[in-house]
């Protein structure tokens, strides 16, 4: 489904991605973990073409992601941005229904609003937030609106950049379950970035750990504890000593 090979990206002399290789199959839920600033968000944005990589190839369904019809390519994707990235000039439901009312579907306003409210309900938001503006919501609520927008058009591939950061533990559980449901029921392919180990266990089929610009370990979730990989072990146990320098 998604095939990333030898991906490089630097910002000036900051070499963020230094040869990422990663592949995921259709209907799989991949979770990416790694320290802050290791380039996880940059990786997702590179796949979407929001950041142009320096070198390397990205294949989606066997086709080069950088070539061909951008609209058709992006129509397969939903993306939850780390910061929410809600349009603050539009109300909450118009944010969620943004793609539904435009593009190929062009649903009528009432129908689109109905779907938006249903998606908001799935992320634990009541219908009365639909007409508010993003700036009037709490951080965690904004995150969930972003999540609702990412899943609104029922895309084939969904990227979640830290979906549970800033949520309370109960709401985190709800969101973890929702992501799992989307993968299982809708057959979507999901790539999730998270720092939350309970999310990893709830969501992942496969895990990839990124450090120093490359994938240090990747494998199925049930091998996470027994990998023997020093980077992964240090990360999972939250130790300050190990191959990952704690003071950077």
């Amino acid at each position, binding site marked *: 489904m998604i095939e990333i090979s030898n991906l490089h990206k630097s910002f000036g002399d900051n070499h963020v991605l230094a040869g990422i290789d990663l592949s995921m199959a259709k209907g799989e839920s991949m979770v990416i973990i790694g320290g802050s600033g290791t380039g996880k968000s940059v990786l997702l944005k590179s796949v979407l073409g929001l950041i142009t990589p320096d070198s390397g190839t990205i294949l989606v369904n066997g086709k080069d992601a950088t070539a061909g019809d*951008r609209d058709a390519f992006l129509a397969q994707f939903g993306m939850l*941005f780390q910061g929410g990235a809600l*349009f603050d000039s539009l109300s909450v439901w118009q944010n969620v229904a943004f793609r539904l009312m435009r593009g190929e579907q062009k649903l009528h306003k009432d129908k689109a609003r109905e779907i938006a409210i249903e998606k908001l309900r799935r992320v634990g938001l009541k219908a009365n937030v639909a007409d508010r503006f993003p700036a009037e919501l709490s951080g965690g609520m904004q995150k969930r609106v972003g999540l609702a927008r990412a899943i609104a058009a029922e895309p084939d591939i969904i990227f979640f950049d830290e979906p549970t950061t800033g949520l309370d533990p109960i709401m985190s559980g709800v969101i973890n379950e929702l992501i799992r449901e989307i993968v299982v029921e809708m057959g979507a392919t999901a790539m999730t970035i998270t720092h939350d180990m309970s999310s990893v266990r709830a969501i992942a089929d496969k895990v990839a750990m990124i450090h120093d610009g490359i994938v240090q370990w990747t494998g199925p979730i049930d091998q996470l504890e027994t990998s023997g990989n020093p980077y992964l072990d240090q990360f999972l146990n939250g130790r300050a000593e190990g191959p990952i320098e704690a003071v950077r």
Partner: protein
Amino acid sequence: MDIFLTPFAAIGAATLAILASIGRVVMYAAQTFMHIFRPPFYPRELAAQLLHIGYFSLPVVGLTAIFTGAALALQIYAGGARFNAEAVVPQIVAVGMVRELGPVLVGLMIAARVTSSIAAEIATMKVTEQLDALVTLSTHPMKYLTVPRVLAALIVVPMLVAVGDTIGIMGGYLVATGRLGFNEAAYLQNTYNFLEIMDVVSSLVKGAAFGVIAAMMGCYYGMQSERGAQGVGKATKTSVVAASVLILAANYILTEAFFSA
């Protein structure tokens, strides 16, 4: 050796940087105009911008114009008195307002009011990843943000200039008839007889050009914004300065084109 060459290298680098940025702006403008004619179109966005750029700018345009027209009448009267030519007030106010001050003042007011708000809004969208979000939702930021703003300015700023010209002339009229003893009917008649079609056409063309410059600079610098609040501040400042300078430069070029004999 280096001590002698360094200043030249610096000048050369600066020149190249300026040329490169002019090139980028021109490319950006060319892309915008291509997108104007290619679907999808966003009529709702256009309507919102017409209201925002046009209607809501009326108060500031009216106030600027009336005071300028009034001051102009006083100056021309005082200046004209030095060689017994006080009577030219209506004619000179009309020409001065319509050919120059109307379009330039409206252009600068739009740069202050509209360019800054466009740049700040789009720059904020950029730094909060809203532009990226637009792209992932299959919406081209240029079509959705730039085209409606530039098109709205193209349509509505000439109208604002027409309003500004008229109110400016009225300002002159009020001072001339109220304070300087001009006859009401004769003043208007003189104004009307003196103005030529070309004066009005040049005024509206200038308005259209200045409107496009103002909106385009706001969008361009907004989308170029660097990260963080500082990036937004810098984008806003640069856009207003660039729009103002370009408007004054374009005014000179258009004046040459219309009126150099």
